[in-house]
């Protein structure tokens, strides 16, 4: 009898395994196509002047020129040290914030968390301009203020410097890293902390010896993610670096694509370096993690734990509030105040006006842009998170050989600067032969699809950082009781991953709503979105109207965030009730 049971279990396991394997292979094909096809087209485009050269004329001269030029390596080194410095700052602050809000009894934790998240919703371009208004040399508002109380001479604080790039470049990424780390911090079981404390370890020893090691995968993933975003970063460097003659790798790429005729070959040849850096980063991450286990959510039940900060809780609260003030209230305040003035940052008599709001709201395409943005955001976040969850599940929770390839594929869209990847999408989908007269190019559907691919690293990393702490015993138990792989995923895995899924959903929604680099290449007039409208106003020199649109964009994301919070609460209570 026992032999029979063993045999049946074995057959079930093999059947299930083969179904799973087929699924993984199909997923690999799908993700491989979505990611590699634009990349391959990008590569072909780089060899024939962006598909403008004569047929069959493939040329590698740009690659040779770029990699025999000493300045390429100088810029690369500068880019790398800037990325390392900003990554360190951003990850340390984000981890501290996540710890304070999830693992301590700091007052008003919910409010602080919402404010940090809201920060991520603001579009980057107006935010950088707010910092310029505040911290430009001599005439920046902070310098003007300092001069009234201190004997400041010369330029004073100068945002056009390495310091400025590091400050703005790291601070703009802290909110997303925070959002990324919160689920991992929340997932640590109180029993582990209590065991440590009851064994005589101090609060700090417990934090260093128990909590931090448990958070290693999420921290490592956050570090890798931050590092790659910093290497690929362009806007802060372009706006703040150039006046100080600070050049980085992406500035050089921008120069190649902004001239006439566009030098696609050099731009893509340069982007290949970033692809190599990404691959190397990922391999290092794999090696560091090795085969260690980091599960914290097990079948034994779970309790959250919050450390009592005692009298320090108000000091910590003030510290977090200071960060929020610097990173959100001050720049946001400058922007909102600026939107009611004739010229933001310039004091003059009779300076207040509603003209910019009237102008923004009288735009005939505002409603259309809003509608398109919402549809695109909802579709992108929902489909993107489903795909990301499947990828993360295979990468983290299975031992299929294909998982490494899938992990790498899901990272690649961030390995290439957004401005170059957008060309890959353009070339990929304009040349894609489609049946039945289906037209994708210029549609909202294509923009959504491109954004899903572009943000795969964000979605899949968010889910992976949550899944990595989920014990296999829960699934094994389900499987032992005869549930299929699909049933296990739906009934056991998904409910436990709900909060992480919803956090990822809002991240993707925000990324879709804020994106400009990809949508501007793929949009057409009927598929206008808010970010292309902001770009338009900015290009017209109507910065204040762009701010108003930026505020509308941020409110839209905030609205989605609050809606998602409601869903999350209902979801959690229904799971608990179940």
């Amino acid at each position, binding site marked *: 009898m026992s032999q029979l049971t063993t045999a049946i279990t074995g057959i079930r396991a093999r059947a299930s395994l083969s179904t799973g394997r087929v699924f993984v292979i199909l997923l690999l094909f799908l993700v491989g196509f979505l990611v590699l096809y634009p990349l391959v087209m990008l590569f072909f485009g780089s060899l024939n002047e962006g598909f403008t050269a*004569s047929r069959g004329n493939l040329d590698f001269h740009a690659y040779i020129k770029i990699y025999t030029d000493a300045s390429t390596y100088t810029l690369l080194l500068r880019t790398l040290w800037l990325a390392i410095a900003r990554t360190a700052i951003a990850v340390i602050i984000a981890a501290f914030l996540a710890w304070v809000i999830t693992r301590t009894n700091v007052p008003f934790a919910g409010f602080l968390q919402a404010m940090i998240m809201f920060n991520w919703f603001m579009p980057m371009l107006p935010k950088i301009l707010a910092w*310029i208004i505040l911290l430009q040399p001599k005439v920046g508002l902070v310098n003007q203020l300092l001069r009234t109380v201190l004997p400041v001479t010369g330029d004073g604080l100068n945002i056009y410097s390495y310091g400025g790039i590091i400050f703005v470049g790291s601070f703009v990424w802290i909110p997303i890293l925070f959002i990324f780390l919160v689920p991992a911090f929340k997932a640590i079981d109180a029993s582990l902390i209590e065991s440590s404390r009851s064994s005589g370890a101090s609060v700090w020893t417990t934090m260093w010896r128990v909590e931090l090691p448990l958070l290693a995968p999420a921290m490592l993933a956050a570090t890798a993610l931050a590092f790659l975003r910093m290497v690929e970063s362009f806007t802060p460097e372009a706006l703040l670096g150039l006046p100080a003659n600070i*050049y980085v790798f992406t500035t*050089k790429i921008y120069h190649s694509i902004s*001239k006439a005729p566009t030098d*696609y070959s050099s731009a893509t040849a340069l982007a290949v370096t970033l692809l190599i850096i990404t691959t190397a980063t990922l391999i290092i991450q794999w090696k560091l993690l090795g085969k260690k286990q980091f599960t914290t959510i097990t079948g034994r039940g779970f309790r959250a734990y919050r450390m009592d900060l005692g009298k320090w809780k108000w000091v910590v609260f003030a510290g977090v509030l200071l960060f929020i003030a610097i990173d959100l209230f001050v720049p946001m305040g400058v922007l909102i105040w600026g939107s009611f003035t004739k*010229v933001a940052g310039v004091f003059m008599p009779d300076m207040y006006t509603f003209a910019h709001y009237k102008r923004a709201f009288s735009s005939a395409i505002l409603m259309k842009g809003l509608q398109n943005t919402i549809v695109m955001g909802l579709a992108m976040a929902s489909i993107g998170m489903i795909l990301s969850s499947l990828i993360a599940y295979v990468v983290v929770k299975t031992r299929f050989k*294909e998982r490494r390839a899938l992990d790498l594929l899901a990272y690649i869209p961030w390995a290439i600067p957004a401005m170059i990847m957008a060309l890959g999408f353009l070339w990929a989908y304009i040349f894609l032969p489609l049946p039945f007269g289906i037209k994708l190019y210029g549609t909202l559907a294509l923009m959504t699809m491109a954004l899903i691919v572009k943000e795969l690293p964000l979605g899949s990393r968010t889910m992976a950082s949550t899944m990595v702490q989920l014990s296999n015993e829960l699934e094994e138990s389900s499987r032992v009781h005869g549930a299929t792989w699909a049933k296990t995923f739906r009934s056991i895995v998904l409910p436990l991953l709900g909060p992480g899924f919803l956090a990822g959903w809002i991240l993707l929604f925000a990324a879709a709503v804020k994106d400009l680099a990809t949508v501007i290449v793929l949009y*057409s007039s009927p598929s206008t979105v808010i970010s292309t409208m902001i770009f338009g106003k900015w290009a017209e*020199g109507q910065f204040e109207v762009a701010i108003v649109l930026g505020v509308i964009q941020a409110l839209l994301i905030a609205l989605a965030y609050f809606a998602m919070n409601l869903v999350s609460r209902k979801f959690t209570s229904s799971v608990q009730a179940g």
Partner: protein
Amino acid sequence: MKAKFKLQVSAVILSILALTVAACAKGTPAPSSPAATTTTKAATSSSPTTAPTSKTTPATTAPSAKPSTTAAQTEWDKWKASYDAEIAKLVDGAKKEGGKLTVYLPQEDQAYFDETVKYMKKNYGVDVEFVALRSSDVQAKVAAEQTAGKVIGDYVQGGSSYARRLNEKGYFDHYLPPAAQEPGVKWLVDPLLDKNEAKFAGKGLTPVVAMSILGVAVNTQLVPAEKMPKSYKDFAIDPFWKGKKIVITDPRTDGQGQQTLYYLDKLFGREDPQILQKFAAQEPVFQQDNTIASRGVATGLYMAMIGSRLAWVQPLQPAPIKLIFMKEGGNSSIALGCIVKGTTHPNAAKLFLNFQLSKDGQRLYTEFGGRTPIRADVKPAADENNASKWGVLPQRSYDDESTVLPKYLDIAKQLWPIK
């Protein structure tokens, strides 16, 4: 197991390569030679006696007022009849095509877009959709659409530097708009500037449809009246301007910064071969973005921005910033109107090109788009847009733009090495 894995990964890569090859095979044929010869002939030889038949072409769309002398009157009447016939034919054709037009162009004021959309619908029954893009995106989209044979953008209004290069590639059609041939009209820039350009033989015709004149934005509080610059040379030789007071866009890439070097050298290089070195010694600051550079002047961070236009200065009023012009004239930035080869809306595109060159088209541009009219019979909406008053620096030929101008990128890299 390992072999199986390799096999699967290889299969994915092979599938993608196969799809790529299929896509390229469909798309790579070079665009055929211009097929617009017959269209051009038909367009230019339309019988002037054919009366306009379309009710959607009201008299208000007449390109200009009638001239006064009898001979001129006769010539104009003849042209007008021909023009009306052509427009009527195009309106009819546009209707059959579906009455739509997609225009790729750089960002313009939304009011200009709105007014133009209304005008084109009311007068020609054409729905115009503007797709505002960065110049690099226009180039990428047009090239990709041409190679793939999927034309979405019917009409491109592009900066001369890249529109001419796209034309050389054979991406545009040849059409001689009758509006450009209106008798008695004085043009501030010849709309048919490139008509005899050898490199465009057998290719498209890209008339000049819009212009902006660029001057110098100065901070009126920081620059005393006696130091107000009069000549571009002042920025290179007057010690007042030394020390991070001048802002330009980065001359090591395309744009106004590069053109500043070009004109400094062209205007003063013979009398002073060291003019560019002297300018570099003044320590100008570079900015990536025109909006931020203009604001830098308005807030007092910089004293002057060379290569600024009214559209960037006007939104900053009443801050202490003003656009002035040097005695050598303003730098004219021209935009070319290009009918895209293979468009499914050729008649609507031709209508739009004629509209842009007409008196109404130029009027809308100056009133709502802040541009400088290229027709002398259209009054500029602002003094800063009066090209007749300020004068314009010599136009750059295609040869200048494609071979001479890029050399200044290398000069700029020598003057300001990228470290």
